[in-house]
């Protein structure tokens, strides 16, 4: 009995030990990653925002403000503007100052040497000569010049045996009321005496003090001889030469004569009709305008006229003249425009000429889809003849701005564009692409009276369509905002577009080589010629987000290697 009990205890002990060992082994396995089957499975779905915007049309206006492409016009809605700004040659190249020169000789016969025979005796000769200015225009009669820059060189030579002194004075060339004057001294036996690079900056030149009364200034000459001895002959002469060089004026008054200011040929590109990336089937601009603005800071009566003003049509590539119905569009020399001119220095006069649908053929021209407008122009001064009230300043100019304004009041029907882009979709077909579904969500609140149809086609190398982004008409459409009777938007039109790609749909893109994308836009009611107005406070609000389903499944080592 006792043996049996011992045996039983032994068996139980062995069983318990075996169980403990087995249990221990099992526990270890629970923490042994070598026992892991290496299989992973990860499924997650994320929805995230990508981008958003709340863009008012005014933002675009501000963006293009520097180029003036879009403006808020005086009626409160928006205009497309195409313009160019040209000015004539600079005033200093039309009305300028030439280098001027005057010279003279004082010979001994002009002196009376009687009593000139003792040391301390002096004799003088004084006279005035006029320095005549050669002007930019033979007709010009200049009264005064305020010099900005200029230098005067005076060269003299005395052959008198006696010592001498020469005084040259320009009594009407003054600075702060002091005339310009130079003195030259000669020793016994004579010699050269020069004064170079005398600065004339800031000097006022009065040209009205001679008998002629313009284009001249008097020069006072005084030569004094000092007795130098009985052996010194009373013969000889003195020559002088005065050169005014490099003169530029700050201001000039007088009569400037008839001058012609040329405006080089210029072109306004009208990209709306010129751009090859899009086409427009039909459109109307209710109130196109063609404006010419003049800025004149010349103090000279002037006339302006176009010598060439045409619009080139994108329809037939023909040139069409822009003509007015008697409001004075200055085309041709015989039909100039009297430009207002400054009456005081520093003033700039603005003048303008405006063509619209009632006084010109601008509507017809716009309907011809003008790709560009080209013009050449001239301006002439003093058409009425002599007038000494002319003035110019150093920066006087006549400038012209030509503006083609297309107020966004009207309609556009079938504005369309299309383009092709090469794409590579190979990565989408990676075996371990973890994306099983992707959805792009575009939420647009359209505050513009414009409906848009968009589409993207995926095609193979032979341009066979493999798939398109949208399948239905409704998917393609972004409705226009509703408008009231005046063509003003009443409320937003909202559209939520979802573009979803799952694995099955993605398979359609296999072999895709190109993406052809295009769109079409119409203003509200354009099909029945309903007109709308685009105001600067129109807005478009959008949110773009995406959903993506991720799935990673399989052996982690394989996935790691393949990724």
């Amino acid at each position, binding site marked *: 009995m006792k043996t049996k009990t011992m045996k039983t205890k032994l068996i139980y002990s062995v069983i318990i030990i075996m169980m403990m060992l087995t249990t221990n082994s099992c526990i270890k396995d629970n923490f042994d990653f070598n026992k892991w089957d290496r299989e992973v499975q990860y499924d997650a779905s994320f929805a995230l*925002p990508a981008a*958003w915007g709340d863009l008012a049309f005014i933002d675009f206006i501000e963006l293009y403000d520097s180029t003036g492409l879009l403006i808020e016009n005086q009626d409160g809605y928006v205009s497309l503007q195409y313009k160019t700004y040209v000015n004539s040659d600079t005033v200093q190249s039309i009305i300028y100052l030439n280098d001027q020169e005057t010279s003279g000789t004082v010979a001994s016969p002009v002196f009376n040497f009687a009593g000139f025979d003792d040391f301390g005796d002096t004799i003088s000769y004084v006279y005035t000569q006029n320095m005549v200015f050669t002007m930019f225009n033979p007709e010009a009669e200049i009264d005064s010049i305020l010099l900005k820059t200029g230098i005067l060189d005076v060269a003299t030579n005395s052959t008198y045996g006696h010592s001498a002194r020469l005084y040259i004075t320009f009594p009407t060339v003054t600075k702060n009321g002091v005339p310009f004057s130079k003195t030259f001294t000669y020793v016994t036996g004579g010699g050269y005496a020069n004064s170079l690079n005398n600065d004339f900056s800031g000097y006022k030149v009065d040209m009205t003090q001679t008998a002629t009364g313009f284009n001249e200034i008097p020069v006072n000459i005084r030569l004094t001889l000092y007795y130098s001895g009985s052996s010194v002959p009373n013969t000889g002469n003195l020559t002088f030469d005065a050169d005014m060089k490099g003169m530029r004026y700050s201001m000039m008054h007088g009569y400037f004569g008839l001058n012609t200011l040329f405006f080089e040929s210029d072109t306004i590109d009208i990209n709306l009709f010129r751009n090859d990336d899009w086409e427009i089937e039909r459109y109307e601009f209710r109130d196109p305008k063609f404006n010419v603005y003049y800025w004149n800071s010349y103090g000279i009566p002037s006339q302006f006229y176009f010598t060439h003003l045409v619009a080139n049509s994108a329809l037939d590539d023909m040139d069409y003249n822009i003509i007015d119905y008697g409001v004075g569009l200055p085309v041709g020399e015989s039909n100039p425009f009297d430009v207002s001119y400054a009456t005081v220095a520093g003033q700039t006069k603005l003048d303008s000429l405006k063509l619209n649908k009632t006084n010109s053929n601008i509507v017809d021209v716009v309907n011809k889809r003008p790709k560009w407008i080209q013009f050449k122009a001239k301006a002439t001064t003093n058409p009425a003849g002599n007038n000494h009230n002319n003035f110019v300043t150093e920066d006087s100019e006549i400038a012209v701005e030509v503006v083609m304004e297309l107020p966004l009041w009207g309609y556009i029907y079938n504005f369309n564009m299309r383009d092709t882009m090469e794409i590579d979709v190979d990565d989408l077909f990676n075996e371990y692409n973890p994306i099983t579904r992707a959805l792009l969500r575009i939420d647009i609140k359209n505050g513009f009276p414009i409906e848009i149809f968009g589409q993207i086609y995926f095609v193979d190398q032979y341009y066979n369509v493999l798939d398109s982004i949208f399948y239905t008409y409704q998917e393609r459409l972004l409705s226009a905002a509703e408008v009231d009777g005046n063509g003003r938007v009443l409320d937003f039109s909202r559209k939520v577009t979802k573009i979803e790609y799952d694995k099955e749909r993605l398979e359609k893109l296999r072999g895709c080589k190109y993406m052809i994308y295009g769109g079409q836009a119409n203003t509200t009611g354009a099909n029945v010629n309903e007109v709308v107005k685009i105001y600067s406070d129109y807005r478009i609000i959008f949110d773009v987000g995406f959903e993506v389903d991720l799935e990673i499944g399989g052996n982690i080592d394989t996935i790691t290697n393949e990724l």
Partner: protein
Amino acid sequence: MKKYIILLIFAGVFSMTQAQQALTLYNMDRVMQSQFVNPSIDVPYKLHIGGLLIPIVGQLPPPLYFNYANNSFYWNHIYHKKPNTVADTAYMLDIPLFMNRLHKNNHLRFDTQFELFNLGIKLENMFITVALTERFKYGVSLPYDIFEFALNGNMPYMLESKPHDFSGLGVNFTHFREFAVGGSMKANDDITVGARMKILFGLANVTTDFKDFSIYTDPEDYSLTAVTDMKIHASLPIYFDYLIHSTDGHLDSLDFNINELSVDAFMADGEFGAITKYMTNFKNIGLGFDFGATYKFNPEIEFFASVTDFGFISWNTNPQNFISKGEYDFRGIQVEVWQNEDDMNETMEKLVDTLFNTFKFELIETGYVTWLPSSIYVGGKYKFHELLHFTALYRGEFYRKTYMQSLTLGVNSNLTNFLSAHLTWSLANNYAGNVGFGLSARMGFMSWYVITDSFTNMIWPQKAKNVNIRMGCNMVFGYKKIKSNASLRS
């Protein structure tokens, strides 16, 4: 380098060691430590002495308490054997099961205590105790939604129009020393009451307080709304440099580094000096209380209740409070009418700045207060036989917005004058497989005890939500058998 090694050692000690769970100990009246969870317990010795500071007795074994608790999952909920498989690679990662086991807030908590000294003296009608204990509490809290977001994405919640709530996210680490003086006495023949007052000396703390941290995905436009109301508090021997460099409101860079000067100052007197400085820090004072009461309903039935760790610590050593409060609606990149690349870059910078300012933590260096995770115990004892008592114990604990509960049923027996044994089953940490035991054995004046609330979890750690052990040795004198009124059945 040495400085960092010392710091790492500190960190290591902390990582080994964090509310006190004593489901089996609660009814072990022969172990003086049961007064830690119910100060009204009547201990049958006239004198107790124990703790690490007591030579030899204090080290055989060292008086240690360790508790790991996870309220939601165990290892096999992540990695387990595939059913009906015997292959070499028979184990699998099981994310669906893991997700299924997660709770709203998932707390992984640790609590470690070293008793430095304890003393219990029986007076006329009173039992006085004095205890000095080194306590470490640490843990991490992970909200369900953080796993939901990472493993399932944000779409499932988006479709339900509910936010991902990460406010449960948090870390907590506290090292403090507890000096407790307690007493229990009979109020009358039926009621015994007890209390312990504890002066707490905080030594190190890092804790988070996320009142709000959520991300809501709008199902309409997928925009993300993030809301934060977060605080991170730290009181450590060293402190951090936190500098934000910005120009004209734009963030340039952010520095977050350990302040070298504080490290140098801490290590100025060498490693031993640093340890001494750390261990003798009395700047962070706190106060705590334990209360308990026992009611003898009749000779066979007792009821008891206690509240433990009701208290706080005021942290004043290098206090740093990182506070973030904001709300941000992210709709993606804002598309504007950019005139040039600079404008576009400016938009991106604005986005980064706004994001940063939303989550930006402001640093405030003022003291702060942390509360201890208090526990309440309510239970009863049925003395079926002098040697066989049945007990039931309910425990509740407030921990980081979560009320944790457990229920323990026990069989207790003071088998002999020198040996007592206790067997418990607990429904704790949302797990019903906790079988615990306690054993107390006395040999002369030496009284050993070893207790666990879940020895089954020690055998099968892969299924452990709770690992719990308490052991130690007390010197005991003057055993007086407490007569059981159920002795009539003996």
